[in-house]
Protein backbone atom coordinates (compact mmCIF):
# COMPACT_ATOMS: atom_id res chain seq x y z
CA UNK A 1 0.00 0.00 0.00
CA UNK A 2 1.56 3.22 -1.10
CA UNK A 3 -0.84 5.86 0.16
CA UNK A 4 1.07 6.90 3.23
CA UNK A 5 1.59 10.35 4.70
CA UNK A 6 3.57 12.61 2.44
CA UNK A 7 6.15 14.84 4.13
CA UNK A 8 4.29 18.10 3.49
CA UNK A 9 1.17 16.84 5.24
CA UNK A 10 3.14 15.43 8.14
CA UNK A 11 4.68 18.83 8.75
CA UNK A 12 1.36 20.58 8.84
CA UNK A 13 -0.82 18.70 11.29
CA UNK A 14 -4.38 18.14 10.15
CA UNK A 15 -6.83 20.06 12.35
CA UNK A 16 -8.96 18.19 14.90
CA UNK A 17 -12.32 17.08 13.56
CA UNK A 18 -15.21 19.13 14.89
CA UNK A 19 -18.09 17.37 16.58
CA UNK A 20 -20.39 18.18 13.63
CA UNK A 21 -17.95 16.57 11.19
CA UNK A 22 -17.89 13.51 13.43
CA UNK A 23 -21.67 13.26 13.57
CA UNK A 24 -21.99 13.86 9.84
CA UNK A 25 -19.49 11.18 9.01
CA UNK A 26 -21.24 8.62 11.21
CA UNK A 27 -24.64 9.42 9.68
CA UNK A 28 -23.42 9.23 6.07
CA UNK A 29 -21.81 5.86 6.79
CA UNK A 30 -25.13 4.58 8.18
CA UNK A 31 -27.13 5.84 5.18
CA UNK A 32 -24.76 4.13 2.75
CA UNK A 33 -24.90 0.96 4.80
CA UNK A 34 -28.68 0.92 4.34
CA UNK A 35 -28.24 1.47 0.61
CA UNK A 36 -25.73 -1.35 0.38
CA UNK A 37 -27.47 -3.88 2.61
CA UNK A 38 -31.24 -3.40 2.33
CA UNK A 39 -33.37 -4.40 -0.63
CA UNK A 40 -36.21 -1.90 -0.36
CA UNK A 41 -35.50 1.03 1.96
CA UNK A 42 -37.41 4.27 2.44
CA UNK A 43 -36.69 7.52 4.28
CA UNK A 44 -39.31 9.30 6.40
CA UNK A 45 -39.71 12.94 5.45
CA UNK A 46 -42.17 15.07 7.38
CA UNK A 47 -40.83 18.51 6.58
CA UNK A 48 -39.53 18.74 10.15
CA UNK A 49 -36.02 19.86 11.03
CA UNK A 50 -34.61 16.41 11.78
CA UNK A 51 -35.76 14.95 8.50
CA UNK A 52 -34.47 18.05 6.67
CA UNK A 53 -31.05 17.26 8.12
CA UNK A 54 -31.47 13.62 7.02
CA UNK A 55 -32.08 14.70 3.42
CA UNK A 56 -28.95 16.88 3.39
CA UNK A 57 -26.98 13.91 4.70
CA UNK A 58 -28.51 11.76 1.94
CA UNK A 59 -27.39 14.31 -0.65
CA UNK A 60 -23.87 14.07 0.71
CA UNK A 61 -24.02 10.28 0.79
CA UNK A 62 -25.37 9.71 -2.73
CA UNK A 63 -24.95 12.72 -5.03
CA UNK A 64 -24.36 13.01 -7.93
CA UNK A 65 -26.38 9.80 -8.00
CA UNK A 66 -30.05 9.54 -7.11
CA UNK A 67 -31.24 8.57 -3.64
CA UNK A 68 -31.47 4.78 -3.46
CA UNK A 69 -34.83 5.17 -1.69
CA UNK A 70 -38.07 7.16 -1.97
CA UNK A 71 -39.32 9.52 0.72
CA UNK A 72 -42.43 8.71 2.77
CA UNK A 73 -44.66 11.00 4.78
CA UNK A 74 -47.52 9.86 6.97
CA UNK A 75 -49.91 12.79 6.86
CA UNK A 76 -52.30 13.08 9.77
CA UNK A 77 -54.35 15.65 7.85
CA UNK A 78 -53.73 17.95 10.79
CA UNK A 79 -50.35 19.31 9.83
CA UNK A 80 -49.46 22.97 9.58
CA UNK A 81 -49.87 24.14 5.97
CA UNK A 82 -46.43 25.83 6.01
CA UNK A 83 -44.86 22.45 6.70
CA UNK A 84 -46.77 20.59 3.98
CA UNK A 85 -45.93 23.30 1.45
CA UNK A 86 -42.28 23.04 2.43
CA UNK A 87 -42.38 19.22 2.20
CA UNK A 88 -43.67 19.27 -1.36
CA UNK A 89 -41.31 22.00 -2.49
CA UNK A 90 -38.25 20.30 -1.01
CA UNK A 91 -39.19 17.01 -2.71
CA UNK A 92 -39.48 18.82 -6.07
CA UNK A 93 -36.14 20.59 -5.60
CA UNK A 94 -34.43 17.29 -4.86
CA UNK A 95 -36.12 15.61 -7.79
CA UNK A 96 -36.76 12.55 -5.66
CA UNK A 97 -39.96 10.54 -5.25
CA UNK A 98 -42.26 11.46 -2.36
CA UNK A 99 -44.93 9.01 -1.21
CA UNK A 100 -47.69 10.37 1.01
CA UNK A 101 -50.07 8.11 2.91
CA UNK A 102 -52.71 9.67 5.07
CA UNK A 103 -54.43 8.80 8.30
CA UNK A 104 -57.70 9.90 6.60
CA UNK A 105 -57.45 6.85 4.34
CA UNK A 106 -56.98 4.55 7.32
CA UNK A 107 -60.05 6.14 8.92
CA UNK A 108 -62.04 5.47 5.72
CA UNK A 109 -60.81 1.88 5.67
CA UNK A 110 -61.86 1.51 9.29
CA UNK A 111 -58.39 0.56 10.54
CA UNK A 112 -58.22 3.78 12.54
CA UNK A 113 -61.17 4.67 14.74
CA UNK A 114 -61.23 8.02 16.49
CA UNK A 115 -63.66 8.95 19.20
CA UNK A 116 -64.07 12.43 17.78
CA UNK A 117 -63.09 14.45 14.73
CA UNK A 118 -60.70 16.56 16.75
CA UNK A 119 -59.00 13.74 18.69
CA UNK A 120 -55.22 13.70 18.25
CA UNK A 121 -54.21 11.60 15.28
CA UNK A 122 -50.63 11.36 16.44
CA UNK A 123 -50.84 7.81 17.77
CA UNK A 124 -52.99 6.76 14.78
CA UNK A 125 -50.02 7.47 12.50
CA UNK A 126 -48.50 4.16 13.57
CA UNK A 127 -51.40 2.28 11.94
CA UNK A 128 -51.10 4.16 8.65
CA UNK A 129 -47.34 3.78 8.74
CA UNK A 130 -47.51 0.01 9.17
CA UNK A 131 -50.07 -0.17 6.34
CA UNK A 132 -47.70 1.77 4.07
CA UNK A 133 -44.77 -0.47 5.01
CA UNK A 134 -46.86 -3.51 4.10
CA UNK A 135 -48.17 -1.93 0.87
CA UNK A 136 -44.67 -1.22 -0.47
CA UNK A 137 -42.84 -4.06 1.28
CA UNK A 138 -40.23 -1.76 2.79
CA UNK A 139 -37.49 -3.63 4.67
CA UNK A 140 -35.78 -0.59 6.15
CA UNK A 141 -37.28 2.74 7.22
CA UNK A 142 -34.82 5.53 7.84
CA UNK A 143 -36.02 8.05 10.41
CA UNK A 144 -34.74 11.21 12.04
CA UNK A 145 -35.39 10.19 15.65
CA UNK A 146 -32.72 11.22 18.13
CA UNK A 147 -31.78 9.54 21.40
CA UNK A 148 -31.71 12.83 23.29
CA UNK A 149 -35.40 13.43 22.59
CA UNK A 150 -36.86 10.98 25.02
CA UNK A 151 -35.71 8.29 27.44
CA UNK A 152 -37.15 5.30 25.58
CA UNK A 153 -35.44 6.51 22.41
CA UNK A 154 -32.21 6.79 24.40
CA UNK A 155 -32.32 3.01 24.63
CA UNK A 156 -32.77 2.18 21.00
CA UNK A 157 -30.20 0.73 18.59
CA UNK A 158 -29.26 2.59 15.41
CA UNK A 159 -30.54 -0.37 13.36
CA UNK A 160 -33.64 -1.28 15.32
CA UNK A 161 -35.54 -4.47 14.57
CA UNK A 162 -39.34 -4.62 14.13
CA UNK A 163 -41.22 -7.91 14.13
CA UNK A 164 -43.96 -8.90 11.67
CA UNK A 165 -46.45 -6.78 13.64
CA UNK A 166 -44.16 -3.75 13.45
CA UNK A 167 -43.41 -3.99 17.14
CA UNK A 168 -40.26 -3.02 19.01
CA UNK A 169 -39.20 -5.33 21.83
CA UNK A 170 -36.98 -3.17 24.03
CA UNK A 171 -36.07 -6.12 26.27
CA UNK A 172 -34.68 -8.13 23.39
CA UNK A 173 -32.59 -5.84 21.20
CA UNK A 174 -29.90 -7.17 18.92
CA UNK A 175 -26.22 -6.68 19.69
CA UNK A 176 -24.72 -3.80 17.70
CA UNK A 177 -20.94 -3.77 17.76
CA UNK A 178 -18.62 -1.06 16.46
CA UNK A 179 -20.08 0.15 13.19
CA UNK A 180 -21.15 -3.31 12.07
CA UNK A 181 -24.90 -3.29 11.60
CA UNK A 182 -27.07 -6.39 11.39
CA UNK A 183 -29.63 -5.80 8.66
CA UNK A 184 -31.06 -9.31 8.39
CA UNK A 185 -34.83 -9.56 8.47
CA UNK A 186 -37.34 -12.16 7.38
CA UNK A 187 -40.25 -11.39 5.11
CA UNK A 188 -42.75 -9.16 6.88
CA UNK A 189 -40.20 -7.90 9.41
CA UNK A 190 -38.30 -4.67 8.96
CA UNK A 191 -35.65 -2.38 10.39
CA UNK A 192 -35.97 1.17 11.59
CA UNK A 193 -32.71 3.01 11.03
CA UNK A 194 -31.74 6.21 12.85
CA UNK A 195 -28.65 7.85 11.34
CA UNK A 196 -28.83 10.91 13.61
CA UNK A 197 -29.36 8.93 16.83
CA UNK A 198 -26.36 10.65 18.42
CA UNK A 199 -27.36 14.23 17.55
CA UNK A 200 -28.87 16.60 20.07
CA UNK A 201 -31.31 19.42 19.37
CA UNK A 202 -28.36 21.82 19.58
CA UNK A 203 -26.33 19.76 17.08
CA UNK A 204 -29.25 19.84 14.63
CA UNK A 205 -29.48 23.63 14.76
CA UNK A 206 -25.73 24.04 14.52
CA UNK A 207 -25.80 21.84 11.43
CA UNK A 208 -28.74 23.75 9.91
CA UNK A 209 -26.75 26.96 10.45
CA UNK A 210 -23.52 25.53 9.06
CA UNK A 211 -25.15 24.06 5.96
CA UNK A 212 -27.48 27.00 5.41
CA UNK A 213 -30.54 24.71 5.31
CA UNK A 214 -34.01 26.11 4.83
CA UNK A 215 -36.66 25.07 7.36
CA UNK A 216 -40.43 25.79 7.44
CA UNK A 217 -41.17 29.33 8.60
CA UNK A 218 -42.96 28.25 11.79
CA UNK A 219 -39.59 27.20 13.28
CA UNK A 220 -38.79 30.90 13.54
CA UNK A 221 -40.45 33.49 15.77
CA UNK A 222 -43.87 34.65 14.57
CA UNK A 223 -47.04 36.04 16.12
CA UNK A 224 -49.62 33.42 17.04
CA UNK A 225 -52.77 33.19 19.15
CA UNK A 226 -52.27 30.83 22.09
CA UNK A 227 -53.77 29.92 25.44
CA UNK A 228 -51.83 28.78 28.52
CA UNK A 229 -52.79 25.24 29.54
CA UNK A 230 -50.89 22.83 31.88
CA UNK A 231 -47.72 24.87 31.51
CA UNK A 232 -47.86 24.69 27.71
CA UNK A 233 -48.74 27.33 25.13
CA UNK A 234 -51.53 25.70 23.17
CA UNK A 235 -52.02 27.21 19.73
CA UNK A 236 -55.60 28.29 19.06
CA UNK A 237 -56.73 26.39 15.96
CA UNK A 238 -59.98 24.84 14.80
CA UNK A 239 -58.77 21.56 16.32
CA UNK A 240 -57.63 23.09 19.58
CA UNK A 241 -60.02 25.96 20.33
CA UNK A 242 -59.76 27.97 23.52
CA UNK A 243 -61.78 26.43 26.35
CA UNK A 244 -64.24 28.35 28.39
CA UNK A 245 -62.50 30.76 30.75
CA UNK A 246 -59.17 30.59 28.94
CA UNK A 247 -57.59 33.84 27.84
CA UNK A 248 -56.39 34.02 24.25
CA UNK A 249 -53.09 35.88 23.92
CA UNK A 250 -51.11 36.80 20.85
CA UNK A 251 -47.45 36.07 21.53
CA UNK A 252 -44.18 35.87 19.65
CA UNK A 253 -43.54 32.11 19.46
CA UNK A 254 -41.69 29.46 17.49
CA UNK A 255 -42.04 25.69 17.22
CA UNK A 256 -39.18 23.55 18.50
CA UNK A 257 -40.78 20.46 17.02
CA UNK A 258 -43.47 20.30 14.38
CA UNK A 259 -45.96 17.51 14.38
CA UNK A 260 -49.67 17.01 14.46
CA UNK A 261 -51.42 20.33 15.21
CA UNK A 262 -53.46 18.70 17.93
CA UNK A 263 -50.48 17.82 20.11
CA UNK A 264 -47.61 20.19 19.29
CA UNK A 265 -47.10 23.46 21.12
CA UNK A 266 -44.83 26.41 20.40
CA UNK A 267 -42.55 28.17 22.89
CA UNK A 268 -42.19 31.89 23.48
CA UNK A 269 -39.31 33.18 21.43
CA UNK A 270 -37.99 36.08 19.43
CA UNK A 271 -35.44 34.01 17.50
CA UNK A 272 -35.57 34.73 13.78
CA UNK A 273 -32.37 33.08 12.59
CA UNK A 274 -30.59 29.75 13.19
CA UNK A 275 -27.92 31.63 15.19
CA UNK A 276 -30.55 33.08 17.50
CA UNK A 277 -32.15 29.67 17.92
CA UNK A 278 -28.76 28.16 18.78
CA UNK A 279 -28.33 30.79 21.47
CA UNK A 280 -31.79 30.03 22.88
CA UNK A 281 -31.30 26.26 22.68
CA UNK A 282 -27.98 26.46 24.52
CA UNK A 283 -29.57 28.27 27.46
CA UNK A 284 -33.00 26.65 27.59
CA UNK A 285 -34.18 25.14 30.85
CA UNK A 286 -36.80 22.81 29.37
CA UNK A 287 -36.29 19.84 27.03
CA UNK A 288 -37.55 19.85 23.46
CA UNK A 289 -40.45 17.51 24.06
CA UNK A 290 -41.18 18.70 27.60
CA UNK A 291 -41.98 22.17 26.37
CA UNK A 292 -43.97 21.16 23.39
CA UNK A 293 -45.71 17.82 23.48
CA UNK A 294 -49.09 17.19 24.97
CA UNK A 295 -48.82 13.50 24.07
CA UNK A 296 -45.68 12.80 26.17
CA UNK A 297 -47.13 14.18 29.36
CA UNK A 298 -49.78 11.51 29.71
CA UNK A 299 -47.49 9.02 31.45
CA UNK A 300 -43.84 8.27 32.14
CA UNK A 301 -43.82 5.62 29.44
CA UNK A 302 -46.06 7.06 26.74
CA UNK A 303 -43.31 7.09 24.10
CA UNK A 304 -42.19 3.56 24.93
CA UNK A 305 -45.77 2.28 24.61
CA UNK A 306 -46.32 4.05 21.29
CA UNK A 307 -43.03 2.71 19.96
CA UNK A 308 -43.97 -0.84 20.89
CA UNK A 309 -47.06 -0.38 18.75
CA UNK A 310 -45.07 0.63 15.71
CA UNK A 311 -44.72 4.39 16.15
CA UNK A 312 -41.74 6.17 14.59
Amino acid at each position, binding site marked *: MSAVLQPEAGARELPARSHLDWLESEAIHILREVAGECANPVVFFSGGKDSIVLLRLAEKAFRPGRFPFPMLHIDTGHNYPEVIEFRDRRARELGERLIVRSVEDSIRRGTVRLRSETESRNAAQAVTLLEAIEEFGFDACIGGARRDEEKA*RAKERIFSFRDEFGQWD*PKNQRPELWSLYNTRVHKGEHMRVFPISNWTELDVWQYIAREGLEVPSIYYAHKRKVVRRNGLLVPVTHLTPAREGEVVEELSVRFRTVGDTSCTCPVESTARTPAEIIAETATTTITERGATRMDDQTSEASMERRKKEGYF
Partner: protein
Amino acid sequence: MSVLGELERRLGTEDRGVLRFITAGSVDDGKSTLIGRLLHDSRQVLEDQLAQVSRASAKKGVNYLDLSLLTDGLEAEREQGITIDVAYRYFATAKRKFIIADTPGHEQYTRNMVTGASTADAAVILIDARKGVLPQTRRHTYISHLLGVKHIFVAVNKMDLVGYAQDVFEAIRRDFLAFAERLRIQDLRFFPVSALQGDMVVERGAGLPWHDGPTLLEALEEVEVRNEAQLKPLRFPVQLVIRPGAGTDFRGYAGRIESGVVRVGDEVVVLPANRTTRVRGTDGSTGSRRPPSRATP
Protein backbone atom coordinates in the same frame (compact mmCIF):
# COMPACT_ATOMS: atom_id res chain seq x y z
CA MET B 1 -24.04 32.46 35.94
CA SER B 2 -24.75 35.11 33.33
CA VAL B 3 -26.58 34.15 30.18
CA LEU B 4 -23.51 34.98 28.12
CA GLY B 5 -21.23 32.92 30.34
CA GLU B 6 -23.70 30.04 30.22
CA LEU B 7 -23.83 30.30 26.45
CA GLU B 8 -20.08 30.19 26.15
CA ARG B 9 -19.93 27.22 28.46
CA ARG B 10 -22.53 25.30 26.46
CA LEU B 11 -21.32 26.17 23.00
CA GLY B 12 -17.67 25.89 23.86
CA THR B 13 -14.66 27.96 23.14
CA GLU B 14 -12.82 25.08 21.52
CA ASP B 15 -14.20 22.04 19.74
CA ARG B 16 -12.21 18.92 20.54
CA GLY B 17 -14.78 16.78 18.79
CA VAL B 18 -16.58 13.88 20.41
CA LEU B 19 -15.57 11.58 23.25
CA ARG B 20 -17.60 8.42 23.71
CA PHE B 21 -17.36 6.62 27.03
CA ILE B 22 -19.19 3.92 28.93
CA THR B 23 -19.92 3.54 32.59
CA ALA B 24 -19.53 -0.09 33.62
CA GLY B 25 -19.06 -2.24 36.70
CA SER B 26 -21.17 -4.42 38.94
CA VAL B 27 -24.82 -3.97 39.88
CA ASP B 28 -25.41 -1.20 42.40
CA ASP B 29 -21.95 0.30 42.07
CA GLY B 30 -23.68 3.54 41.13
CA LYS B 31 -23.29 3.85 37.36
CA SER B 32 -26.59 5.56 36.73
CA THR B 33 -26.08 7.85 39.73
CA LEU B 34 -22.66 8.85 38.41
CA ILE B 35 -24.16 9.80 35.05
CA GLY B 36 -26.93 11.67 36.79
CA ARG B 37 -24.25 13.54 38.73
CA LEU B 38 -22.25 14.37 35.60
CA LEU B 39 -25.36 15.70 33.86
CA HIS B 40 -26.66 17.50 36.92
CA ASP B 41 -23.41 19.21 37.92
CA SER B 42 -22.60 20.21 34.35
CA ARG B 43 -26.13 21.67 34.32
CA GLN B 44 -27.45 19.50 31.49
CA VAL B 45 -30.50 18.24 33.32
CA LEU B 46 -33.38 20.49 32.44
CA GLU B 47 -36.20 21.57 34.70
CA ASP B 48 -38.87 19.26 33.31
CA GLN B 49 -36.52 16.26 33.59
CA LEU B 50 -35.70 17.16 37.20
CA ALA B 51 -39.39 17.53 37.96
CA GLN B 52 -39.99 14.08 36.44
CA VAL B 53 -37.17 12.59 38.52
CA SER B 54 -38.37 14.17 41.73
CA ARG B 55 -41.94 12.91 41.08
CA ALA B 56 -40.60 9.43 40.40
CA SER B 57 -38.27 9.54 43.42
CA ALA B 58 -41.19 10.41 45.67
CA LYS B 59 -43.23 7.59 44.14
CA LYS B 60 -40.38 5.19 44.90
CA GLY B 61 -40.42 6.43 48.48
CA VAL B 62 -36.88 7.79 48.69
CA ASN B 63 -36.16 11.16 50.24
CA TYR B 64 -33.35 12.21 47.88
CA LEU B 65 -33.24 12.88 44.14
CA ASP B 66 -32.70 9.44 42.61
CA LEU B 67 -30.56 10.47 39.63
CA SER B 68 -30.51 6.93 38.26
CA LEU B 69 -34.10 7.54 37.16
CA LEU B 70 -32.69 9.84 34.48
CA THR B 71 -31.22 6.97 32.51
CA ASP B 72 -33.40 3.97 33.25
CA GLY B 73 -35.71 4.65 30.34
CA LEU B 74 -37.75 1.47 30.07
CA GLU B 75 -40.80 0.58 32.11
CA ALA B 76 -39.33 -2.76 33.11
CA GLU B 77 -36.16 -1.05 34.31
CA ARG B 78 -38.00 1.41 36.47
CA GLU B 79 -40.23 -1.30 37.89
CA GLN B 80 -37.32 -3.57 38.82
CA GLY B 81 -34.86 -0.78 39.62
CA ILE B 82 -32.20 -2.26 37.33
CA THR B 83 -30.59 -1.38 33.99
CA ILE B 84 -31.43 -3.91 31.28
CA ASP B 85 -30.05 -2.28 28.16
CA VAL B 86 -27.56 0.41 27.36
CA ALA B 87 -28.88 4.00 27.42
CA TYR B 88 -27.18 6.86 25.64
CA ARG B 89 -26.91 10.34 27.10
CA TYR B 90 -25.39 13.49 25.70
CA PHE B 91 -23.69 16.44 27.25
CA ALA B 92 -21.16 19.03 26.29
CA THR B 93 -18.67 21.13 28.18
CA ALA B 94 -16.77 24.09 26.85
CA LYS B 95 -14.16 21.64 25.57
CA ARG B 96 -16.01 18.84 23.83
CA LYS B 97 -19.18 16.87 23.24
CA PHE B 98 -19.62 13.67 25.23
CA ILE B 99 -21.66 10.59 24.42
CA ILE B 100 -22.20 8.39 27.47
CA ALA B 101 -23.36 4.82 27.24
CA ASP B 102 -24.80 3.68 30.56
CA THR B 103 -24.36 -0.08 30.48
CA PRO B 104 -26.11 -2.74 32.58
CA GLY B 105 -24.23 -4.34 35.45
CA HIS B 106 -26.14 -7.63 35.73
CA GLU B 107 -24.27 -10.61 34.38
CA GLN B 108 -27.24 -11.74 32.28
CA TYR B 109 -27.21 -8.44 30.39
CA THR B 110 -23.46 -8.44 29.67
CA ARG B 111 -24.22 -8.75 25.95
CA ASN B 112 -25.82 -5.32 26.07
CA MET B 113 -22.79 -3.92 27.88
CA VAL B 114 -20.69 -5.21 24.96
CA THR B 115 -22.79 -3.19 22.52
CA GLY B 116 -22.07 -0.02 24.51
CA ALA B 117 -18.37 -0.75 24.98
CA SER B 118 -17.65 -1.48 21.33
CA THR B 119 -17.96 2.15 20.24
CA ALA B 120 -16.34 3.72 23.32
CA ASP B 121 -13.05 5.62 23.45
CA ALA B 122 -12.98 5.42 27.23
CA ALA B 123 -14.51 3.27 29.96
CA VAL B 124 -15.31 4.41 33.48
CA ILE B 125 -15.32 1.26 35.61
CA LEU B 126 -17.13 1.81 38.88
CA ILE B 127 -16.31 0.03 42.10
CA ASP B 128 -18.27 0.25 45.33
CA ALA B 129 -15.65 1.25 47.93
CA ARG B 130 -17.32 -1.02 50.49
CA LYS B 131 -17.20 -4.10 48.26
CA GLY B 132 -13.96 -3.66 46.33
CA VAL B 133 -13.10 -5.51 43.11
CA LEU B 134 -15.87 -7.97 42.14
CA PRO B 135 -16.06 -10.59 39.36
CA GLN B 136 -18.16 -8.20 37.28
CA THR B 137 -15.50 -5.47 37.72
CA ARG B 138 -12.92 -7.79 36.20
CA ARG B 139 -15.29 -9.00 33.48
CA HIS B 140 -16.16 -5.49 32.32
CA THR B 141 -12.50 -4.42 32.40
CA TYR B 142 -11.46 -7.43 30.30
CA ILE B 143 -14.29 -6.89 27.81
CA SER B 144 -13.59 -3.16 27.43
CA HIS B 145 -9.91 -3.87 26.84
CA LEU B 146 -10.69 -6.71 24.45
CA LEU B 147 -12.98 -4.48 22.38
CA GLY B 148 -10.23 -1.92 22.00
CA VAL B 149 -11.09 0.70 24.63
CA LYS B 150 -7.76 2.45 25.26
CA HIS B 151 -8.57 4.66 28.24
CA ILE B 152 -9.84 2.88 31.35
CA PHE B 153 -10.68 5.07 34.33
CA VAL B 154 -11.45 3.25 37.56
CA ALA B 155 -13.81 5.27 39.76
CA VAL B 156 -13.89 4.02 43.34
CA ASN B 157 -17.36 5.20 44.26
CA LYS B 158 -19.31 5.67 47.48
CA MET B 159 -16.21 7.03 49.24
CA ASP B 160 -18.60 8.87 51.56
CA LEU B 161 -19.73 5.51 52.96
CA VAL B 162 -16.17 4.54 54.00
CA GLY B 163 -15.43 7.89 55.63
CA TYR B 164 -13.46 9.07 52.59
CA ALA B 165 -10.58 6.87 53.80
CA GLN B 166 -7.51 6.99 51.58
CA ASP B 167 -6.30 3.53 52.65
CA VAL B 168 -9.55 1.95 51.39
CA PHE B 169 -8.96 3.58 48.01
CA GLU B 170 -5.30 2.48 47.92
CA ALA B 171 -6.18 -1.11 48.82
CA ILE B 172 -8.72 -1.29 45.97
CA ARG B 173 -6.20 0.20 43.57
CA ARG B 174 -3.69 -2.55 44.53
CA ASP B 175 -6.32 -5.27 44.09
CA PHE B 176 -7.28 -3.93 40.69
CA LEU B 177 -3.69 -3.67 39.48
CA ALA B 178 -3.05 -7.24 40.62
CA PHE B 179 -5.27 -8.57 37.84
CA ALA B 180 -5.12 -5.68 35.36
CA GLU B 181 -1.36 -5.34 35.07
CA ARG B 182 -1.01 -8.14 32.57
CA LEU B 183 -3.63 -6.58 30.27
CA ARG B 184 -1.21 -3.75 29.45
CA ILE B 185 -3.95 -1.14 29.30
CA GLN B 186 -2.64 1.93 27.50
CA ASP B 187 -4.12 4.52 29.86
CA LEU B 188 -5.28 3.24 33.26
CA ARG B 189 -6.16 5.73 36.01
CA PHE B 190 -7.87 5.71 39.41
CA PHE B 191 -10.27 8.22 40.94
CA PRO B 192 -11.87 8.28 44.39
CA VAL B 193 -15.41 9.67 43.99
CA SER B 194 -18.78 9.99 45.64
CA ALA B 195 -21.37 10.21 42.89
CA LEU B 196 -24.16 10.70 45.42
CA GLN B 197 -22.43 13.59 47.23
CA GLY B 198 -20.73 14.96 44.15
CA ASP B 199 -17.10 14.64 45.28
CA MET B 200 -14.43 14.53 42.55
CA VAL B 201 -16.91 13.96 39.69
CA VAL B 202 -17.38 17.45 38.25
CA GLU B 203 -16.53 19.51 41.33
CA ARG B 204 -13.75 18.57 43.73
CA GLY B 205 -16.07 18.62 46.78
CA ALA B 206 -14.87 18.71 50.37
CA GLY B 207 -14.42 15.03 51.23
CA LEU B 208 -11.28 14.10 49.33
CA PRO B 209 -8.58 16.70 49.99
CA TRP B 210 -5.88 14.01 49.78
CA HIS B 211 -6.59 13.38 46.09
CA ASP B 212 -4.45 15.81 44.14
CA GLY B 213 -5.25 14.56 40.61
CA PRO B 214 -7.96 15.94 38.33
CA THR B 215 -11.66 15.27 38.83
CA LEU B 216 -13.19 12.56 36.67
CA LEU B 217 -14.73 15.08 34.26
CA GLU B 218 -11.50 17.07 33.96
CA ALA B 219 -9.70 13.86 33.00
CA LEU B 220 -12.38 12.94 30.44
CA GLU B 221 -12.13 16.38 28.88
CA GLU B 222 -8.43 15.88 28.32
CA VAL B 223 -8.52 12.37 26.79
CA GLU B 224 -6.69 12.52 23.50
CA VAL B 225 -8.54 10.85 20.66
CA ARG B 226 -6.46 12.54 18.02
CA ASN B 227 -6.67 10.17 15.20
CA GLU B 228 -3.84 7.70 15.33
CA ALA B 229 -5.52 5.95 12.42
CA GLN B 230 -4.51 8.81 10.17
CA LEU B 231 -0.87 7.91 10.57
CA LYS B 232 -1.41 4.37 9.34
CA PRO B 233 -1.60 3.21 5.69
CA LEU B 234 -4.79 3.87 3.74
CA ARG B 235 -7.66 1.43 4.26
CA PHE B 236 -10.86 2.30 2.43
CA PRO B 237 -13.71 -0.23 2.42
CA VAL B 238 -16.10 0.59 -0.43
CA GLN B 239 -19.72 0.71 0.76
CA LEU B 240 -21.27 1.43 -2.62
CA VAL B 241 -20.49 2.60 -6.12
CA ILE B 242 -22.15 5.84 -7.18
CA ARG B 243 -23.10 5.83 -10.87
CA PRO B 244 -25.68 8.44 -11.84
CA GLY B 245 -25.94 6.79 -15.27
CA ALA B 246 -27.53 8.64 -18.18
CA GLY B 247 -25.54 11.55 -19.55
CA THR B 248 -22.48 11.16 -17.38
CA ASP B 249 -19.64 8.72 -17.03
CA PHE B 250 -19.14 9.63 -13.37
CA ARG B 251 -18.24 6.70 -11.23
CA GLY B 252 -17.39 7.17 -7.56
CA TYR B 253 -16.50 4.75 -4.81
CA ALA B 254 -18.22 5.74 -1.60
CA GLY B 255 -17.24 4.69 1.88
CA ARG B 256 -15.58 5.74 5.08
CA ILE B 257 -11.80 5.91 5.33
CA GLU B 258 -10.86 3.58 8.19
CA SER B 259 -7.21 4.61 8.31
CA GLY B 260 -4.73 6.80 6.51
CA VAL B 261 -5.10 9.71 4.15
CA VAL B 262 -5.98 9.72 0.46
CA ARG B 263 -4.82 12.29 -2.08
CA VAL B 264 -5.31 12.85 -5.76
CA GLY B 265 -2.59 10.97 -7.62
CA ASP B 266 -1.95 8.41 -4.88
CA GLU B 267 -1.25 4.89 -6.07
CA VAL B 268 -3.64 2.43 -4.44
CA VAL B 269 -4.17 -1.32 -4.57
CA VAL B 270 -7.72 -2.58 -5.07
CA LEU B 271 -8.51 -5.77 -3.18
CA PRO B 272 -9.35 -8.57 -3.66
CA ALA B 273 -8.48 -8.07 -7.36
CA ASN B 274 -4.98 -6.93 -6.32
CA ARG B 275 -4.92 -4.35 -9.12
CA THR B 276 -3.02 -1.09 -8.86
CA THR B 277 -4.55 2.22 -9.91
CA ARG B 278 -4.31 5.94 -9.17
CA VAL B 279 -6.78 8.24 -7.41
CA ARG B 280 -8.21 10.65 -9.99
CA GLY B 281 -10.23 12.85 -7.64
CA THR B 282 -11.82 12.95 -4.21
CA ASP B 283 -15.30 14.19 -3.44
CA GLY B 284 -15.74 15.07 0.21
CA SER B 285 -18.97 15.84 1.97
CA THR B 286 -18.64 19.47 0.92
CA GLY B 287 -18.19 18.64 -2.76
CA SER B 288 -15.09 18.10 -4.87
CA ARG B 289 -11.97 19.25 -3.13
CA ARG B 290 -8.24 19.13 -3.26
CA PRO B 291 -7.25 18.79 0.42
CA PRO B 292 -6.64 15.20 1.50
CA SER B 293 -9.54 13.12 2.73
CA ARG B 294 -8.74 11.30 5.91
CA ALA B 295 -9.78 8.71 8.40
CA THR B 296 -12.59 9.33 10.85
CA PRO B 297 -11.53 9.12 14.50
